[in-house]
């Protein structure tokens, strides 16, 4: 299936979860409760089709064909 990640098309396997996708992009695997292994605040948030997915739900949320995913973090800004 094909999803859009931060504006770019991306071919992925069916059944990919938000947690899987974040791990592919950042190398960090969140726990099933949404924690980060080193216990810090992760600094990343995810919206699927303009709905924010809370981190605790990433491992359960499977992506579907043509989903639009935005993955954001803090950058410089006034």
């Amino acid at each position, binding site marked *: 299936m094909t999803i859009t990640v*931060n*504006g770019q098309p991306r071919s992925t396997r069916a059944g990919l979860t938000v947690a899987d996708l974040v791990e592919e*992009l*950042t190398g960090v695997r969140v726990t099933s409760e949404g924690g980060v292994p080193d216990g*810090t*605040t*992760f*600094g*990343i*948030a*995810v*919206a699927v089709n*303009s709905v*924010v997915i*809370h*981190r605790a739900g990433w491992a359960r949320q499977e992506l579907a064909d043509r989903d639009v995913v*935005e*993955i*954001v*973090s*803090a*950058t*410089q*800004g*006034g």
Partner: protein
Amino acid sequence: MNSDILCIDGVEFTSRLIMGTGGAPSHAGLGSALTASGTQLTTVAMRRHDPSSEGSLFQLISDKGIRLLPNTAGCLTAREAILTAELAREALATNWIKLEVIADEDTLLPDGAELVAATEQLVARGFVVFAYTNDDPALALRLEELGAAAVMPLGAPIGTGLGILNPHNISLIVERARVPVVLDAGIGTASDAALAMELGCDAVLLATAVTRAQDPSGMATAFRHAVIAGRLAALSGRIPRRTTSLASSAMEGRPDL
């Protein structure tokens, strides 16, 4: 000055200089400038995650013990601003948000109608809203009524460095608002920040004036002192303005020369 605390949503600050991070050429230079400014609260924007970018800005600021204030910069509608705020709350674990809803990308001036709608909805969703607004006393008070934790009138459009174009309106907002007033945007140099504090603002927020200065750390130090100086002046009761001179040396007892 240690007893002169700025309190927002129960959080106490001894520094009244809120820093933005936009426009800095490198994280290292930005880190030095933030330290030099003495700031305890600093804004960040939420953008698409770039795994190749240098280090984590979030971590850089957090490691300095500085509280984060995410913004909704670039949002043109209340809907976008609310979604951005929700993303920021999720990513950074804070319910504080600097609300910016701009009318167009040339002036970056706030869109009053969208700002009002977004403030109302964000407050209902449990956010602590720092509302970036026009220097319009009526609009600022409306935002306060809707539950904004602080109102942040602009001195001049973002990034212009034109200073405070309408000091009278800023004074009107300061006189009437019960929530903290933060002069946001338009600051060019240290005296602009001192003036904002002398007008009675509770804090100053600036970014470009430091990040694009030739020596950002030097300018950040200047702003740290300017905000303290302006605050002390505001609290210390300036002399009334006069149209004629008033000698400070006594005329009595002059020698007959």
